């Protein structure tokens, strides 16, 4: 019996057929080893969840969640009124046109340097410029990551190959989230750090996109997988945790989206930070992942023609509705990663040491660095963070009085309490003295 498939026909990149495009150089952590079927934006996690294909619970989570935390209501899709989310208002703002008077670019190297200056000036932590390649692109349409919702849209019908010939460069402008605040991950504090950089990344990308239009060139968003673009642009390497690990910030960078452009640029080369050798040994993210979504295998897997560490995004995503009452963004794999550290001299020294060590000797250096990391930062970093009246030492759901300086007895059984007891684990505007109420 003939096997029929309902799967739509997607464009492919086949290194044996597409002779115009030799396999892309994505650095030591990712290799294109076979035919890559381009992924349609509709088949990526967020749109699938929002359509209900991942089950009722996730559907409800994706569309109907309102956070108990006021900051989360202003910087994420868990909002009450989307007009209070910066990036949603930005999305609805009128779009500018491409300047018909094009700026002449005589030296693409100078323009590359300029775009990097511009990106940093707008607030990007890193600006990566890479060469576009059909294997990095989505199958068609547009993946609209507005920082508020991620949705797919109909777009131009050009194939990835046609797009790459027309627009040969990709730009990514990640923003790094705060190291200290992210120590309180699995808490509103970590959520705030993460979600705010999403808004900032979208802001920087939009500003760079508008500036390229003003230079008289095209800037397309939502066409390129931002992680692949970051690899091509030398931002970092892909870790076991499925995140891009950068030189200065480790995996605490927010990518969100990439710009595909015809502005003449001189692309960067992928970098080698020793991530490939480190991830082989370390497995810290796999051990701490609450959903076992990260592989323990020493060797990488080949998935869709790409050799890499593949995470199970379905189980990773399914944690969210279970915890959404208390916090949202897990970030464990990013926070425990030994590369995710403050950007200081000793961190640079460690990365440079590994980078300069010849490959055969690297496992020894990795083991000693991992030992140091476990010794000084803990196998599972667990630091108490206080910020804005939030306190990661207080567990969600703990109730206490929120009147500053209050000394009344509130917890006597059977007594009516005049002053309401509130969830201080959510938002505690007034809890200089909550220590007296909370056992630790």
């Amino acid at each position, binding site marked *: 019996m003939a096997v029929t498939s309902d799967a739509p026909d997607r464009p492919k990149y086949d290194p044996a057929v597409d002779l115009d495009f030799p396999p892309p150089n994505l650095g030591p952590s990712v290799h294109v080893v076979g035919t890559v079927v381009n992924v349609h934006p509709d088949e990526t996690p967020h749109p699938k969840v929002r359509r209900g294909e991942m089950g009722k619970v996730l559907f409800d989570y994706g569309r109907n969640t309102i956070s108990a935390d006021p*900051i989360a209501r202003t910087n994420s899709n868990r909002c009450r009124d989307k*007009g209070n989310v*910066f990036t949603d208002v930005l999305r609805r703002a009128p779009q500018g*046109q491409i300047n018909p008077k094009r700026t002449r670019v005589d030296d693409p190297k100078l323009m590359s340097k300029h775009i990097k*200056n511009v990106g940093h000036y707008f607030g990007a932590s890193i600006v990566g410029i890479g060469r576009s390649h059909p294997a990095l692109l989505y199958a068609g349409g547009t993946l609209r990551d507005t920082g508020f919702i991620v949705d797919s849209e109909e777009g131009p019908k050009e194939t990835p190959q046609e797009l790459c010939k027309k627009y040969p460069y990709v730009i990514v402008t990640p923003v790094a989230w705060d190291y200290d605040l992210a120590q309180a991950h699995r808490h509103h504090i970590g959520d705030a750090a993460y979600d705010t950089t999403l808004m*900032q990344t979208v*802001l920087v990308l939009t500003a760079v996109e508008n500036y390229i239009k*003003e230079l008289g060139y095209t800037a397309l968003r939502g066409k390129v997988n931002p992680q692949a673009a970051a690899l091509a642009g030398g931002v970092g390497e892909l870790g076991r945790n499925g995140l891009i690990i950068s030189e200065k910030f480790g995996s605490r960078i927010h990518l969100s989206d990439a710009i595909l452009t015809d502005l003449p640029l001189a692309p960067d080369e992928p970098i080698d930070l020793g991530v490939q050798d480190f991830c082989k040994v370390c497995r810290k993210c796999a051990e701490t992942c609450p959903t076992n979504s990260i592989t323990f295998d020493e060797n990488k897997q080949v998935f869709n023609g790409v050799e890499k560490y593949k995470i199970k995004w379905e189980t990773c995503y399914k944690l969210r509705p279970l915890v959404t009452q208390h916090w949202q963004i897990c970030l464990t794999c990013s926070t425990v990663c030994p590369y995710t550290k403050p950007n200081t001299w000793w961190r640079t020294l460690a990365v440079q040491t590994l980078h300069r060590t010849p490959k055969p000797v690297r496992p020894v250096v990795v083991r000693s660095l991992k030992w140091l990391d476990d010794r000084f930062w803990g196998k599972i970093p667990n630091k108490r963070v206080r910020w804005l009246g939030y306190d990661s030492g207080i567990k969600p759901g703990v109730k206490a009085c929120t009147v500053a300086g209050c000394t009344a007895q509130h917890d006597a059984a059977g007594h009516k309490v005049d002053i309401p007891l509130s969830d201080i684990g959510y938002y505690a505007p007034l809890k200089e003295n909550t220590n007296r109420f909370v056992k630790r």
Partner: protein
Amino acid sequence: MRLPTDDPYWDAFINRAPADPNNLIPHGFRQVTPGGVNPARTEVHSPNVMSSHVKELAQFYGADLVGIVALEPDRFGVVCVMRSDYDPQVAVGIGGQTPALKGLFASFTVGAYIRELGYAADSSGAEKERFAAAARLGTLDAEGRLVTRQFGRNVHVADVLITDLPLEPDGRA
């Protein structure tokens, strides 16, 4: 960030007015109506603590200086001031307007936070330099421009948030 002196495109980035004003984010952004006030109001018992939170949050969102000015008995203005390398009133390019962009981000997100707490927060560009001086962030010079102790005249005052959130003001208008 150190300003690039050897970048041949930098001057146009800072000073050349955009051909389409909608390519300037603050211009397009102001054409969209922001969200409303949360009907479930959060009780605020200690205005002094709330003030410190609002200021800390504005700094987290990128404001360099934050002050609170009392306008009427129960109305306050939250003023965010951004350090600026170029004067946005003169440098009309997309780059020159960067302090306005960053000021918009800080001021909008803090305003959204206040609205989500259940209090009004309306942006107003009127008399913002005077309110900044009244919030003790600096003094006004003869031309009515803000001069700060930290950054001198190299500052941009973002739109003032007019709110009824109970706060402890730094000064009175």
